[in-house]
């Protein structure tokens, strides 16, 4: 194909043909069929579309796919593999093991409608990579004050998210 971009998505090399200015979100969803990240505001104001780019959270709704070229993109679908690699889990165990953040989201029964939660889990993974033992105040700060915008949940699951981040932090240390 004439104009293609190569990126690494959840550990696999992908060549995509979308125009270079196309937001990464639409490439992931429509071309690569990765539907974990979802469209919220389309202008980096809510966090529903968040993915990790080389370990840093970005809003895929405003990130051109060309910017992701050559970088590692991680969506929630790729979180278990990250954990398996980090912990050297074997095939069988790896296949059955979720990322501790995902497991905590299940154990703490976080999602209500769940629309924003993919982005919330991405933000949690990023936070715990930088701060393995965040306090409640630090969790609130990370989900509210980190640019470009707060991570918004309209169902109001913030208390459950705080519980889940703390549970995941414990589990990741254990």
């Amino acid at each position: 194909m004439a104009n293609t971009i190569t990126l690494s998505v959840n550990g696999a090399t992908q060549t995509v043909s979308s125009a270079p200015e196309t937001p990464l979100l639409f490439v992931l969803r429509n071309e690569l069929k990765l539907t974990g990240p979802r469209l919220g505001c389309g202008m980096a104001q809510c966090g529903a579309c968040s993915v990790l780019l080389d370990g840093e959270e970005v809003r895929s709704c405003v990130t051109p796919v060309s910017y992701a070229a050559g970088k590692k993109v991680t969506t929630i679908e790729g979180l278990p593999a990250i954990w398996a690699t980090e912990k050297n889990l074997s095939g069988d165990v790896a296949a059955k093991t979720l990322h501790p953040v995902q497991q905590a989201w299940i154990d703490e029964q976080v999602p209500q409608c769940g629309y924003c939660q993919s982005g919330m889990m991405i933000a949690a993974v990023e936070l715990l990579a930088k701060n393995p033992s965040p306090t409640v105040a630090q969790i609130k700060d990370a989900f509210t004050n980190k640019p470009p915008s707060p991570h918004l949940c309209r169902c109001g699951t913030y208390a459950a998210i705080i519980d889940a981040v703390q549970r995941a932090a414990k589990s990741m240390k254990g």
Partner: protein
Amino acid sequence: MTVQTETSGESLITTTITRRGFVKMGGALFVSLTIPPGFTLGAAESQTSLDPSLLASWLEIRGDNTILVRTGRTETGTGMSGYYAQAVAEELSVRPETITLILGDTDRTPDGGYSAGFLSGMENVRKVAAYTHQALLELAAKQLGVPVASLSVADGVVTGGGKSISYAQLVLGQQLDLKIPVSGGRAKIDPASPFGNGLGGLDGFTVTGEPRTKPVNQYKVIGTSYPVPGIPDKVTGKTQWTCDVTLPGMLHARMVRPATMGSTLISVGALDKKQFPTAEVLSKGNLVAVVSPNEWEAINAARSVAATTKWTAWAGLPGSENVTKAIRAYKWGAPSESQGKAADVAASLASASKTISATYELPYVRHAPIGPFLAVADVRSDGSVIVWTHSAQSQGLRAQIANTLSIPAEKVVVRWLDHSGQYGRTTFGGDGAEADAVILSQLTGKPVRVQWTLQEDLAWSSVSPAYVIDMKAAVEVSGRLSAVHSASYTPHQSDARLLGAFLAGMPAVTPKPGTWIATEWPYDKIQNRLEEAYGMPSLGADATSAGLRGNIMRTPGQRQQNFALEGLINEAAASARVDPIQFRLNHTTDQRLIDILNATAKAAGWEPRPSPHSGARKTGHNPVTGRGVCIMVRSNAYWAGIAEVSVVPSTGAVQVTKFTIGADCGKVINPRQLDRCMKSGVAMGLSEALKEEVTFDKEKVTSTNWSRYKILTMAELPKIKVVQISRDDKGFGGGSEAANAVVPPAVAAALFDATGVQSRRIPLTPAYVTALLKA
């Protein structure tokens, strides 16, 4: 888990067993599933409906002893799918994990009904399970050769006389021809509908009769924190959301909306085919859209077309700063609804030692989900229509789509999938992108996916209308209240029309202005009361877009009316110099209310004293603190909320530092999910109390992104304490919805406690509070 069944005596239903050989579908065996030709489908039914009077339409037992349950209601995010599974599992004495649910699809579920009406929805499936249980026990009694009374069931296996047989074995190869009694009907267009939304039958079908159900003291599943079933798939990315539907040949659409709420189309802007080679512009009436096989092209082409599309001018809104004035200016006639005795209340007020009057105001707010409206529609050449939706009222939506396209409802199938929360806006089967999608699919002959933008959703979806509520109380010498008069005035709040339909000039339902009294009166010791609810048309109703289409939103009507009632009670308590909790206790004999209020007060560490507190201050840079309380009764549930705030008078900044919320909703079905719903409801209530207001100028809504329509962020969440009272003898009550409504009155009362200044309006923004404290 072993449960001794209590069955004895005669069956309430007639069970006929007919041997019809194996009925196999999808590799599973069914009691009576594939509805054989000519057997179950009555003349009034079609291939796009299931007969609700057939048990098999609701429930199947599969060969592996798992169970499939179908209901037209949906999961709105509060955990109904868990509660339904628990109720069915309880009655059938199986593990809830063995139950899967089909929700909301009009062609694969029998009942329809409100998704928000979880109590009636759960009662339906509970009765279905109870009827099934009864029939299975009769079968087992015959098979095992023992009386029904000596049978017991554990985990879907019936045991008696030393022998056991599973439910699956019982129905293997047999057709359980079981009719159950139902009442009601399917949603339909009905101009005389009671809510004024132009639709009837939104309750759907109700399973009637009184099948023998399990006594509460034998419950093993209800009352446990069974995990809500859909959550693991949502967390791992396996859920198929409405936005994930893709069909061969599907086009992506972006809408081009009018320049103002009342504009009509002059000319459609040009599309540069060189720049957007595969895009196409479509229009019908005032409905304009751009479609493309490529979503990014559709987005850019729509922006480009919008820039040169011409609309007429219009300026028919009062502006959000003039809402109260506009409501006051309306020529009000008789109330839409009235309760109580006007003469007795007038006499009490006339003879009272003192009266208290106050007017409370609530602004326009909106549902504002994180994911804007979206729908996928396929209008086929044979005239059949499939719509993929996240509406909370599939059958109501089906009736509206059929009406808009002028085709019989039998031609329309609505398929439901998870998506962003609705918070009430689709409860009446309207609002949303579905009409846009079917109209565009009809115009193109292809499946079309319509994704609204956030700006579009915050500007064009329906809104929860403003309220102005006049309250008056008669106070006795003792300080107690002898009468309360409430009169609430509000624009229309049940406009369930689909925007695309009337923008395109196609048939849409006809809503009628009106409103209702939502309060469930908690103060039985107040002798006389008169409640009046007055409704007027939506602001800007004459516009082609129908202006600010008012719609219901979480805890509708009662959220607003309770703000006024509890505000008045707090003012009366302060006036009487009585502790506000004691003041409430003085005005009720309802033990459930008394218990939840006392338990919540205890959890909050409440120390009785009147408000405002002795250190209350309305000036200065140092923070002052306060606490406030409110209660509410709704849907067989009793609520209490206690807010603690810190206020900086000089800046008007109100920080809620702690919120204690208590609920007695009868028998608690799922304590953990109730905890989750109570805490998240507090978050939504705080958002409304502190931040939310739809703003508009004379032409259009202006609060069209998240920096203009502000909602609560995580940093603003206080510590939340939850109190639950579960009762075995009071049935089930609604616990998922109402927590939001007990927040604003408690926060306003806490602000008064801290500053000594009454706030009769929300949101308590710094600008408003500063002005209030200076006044």
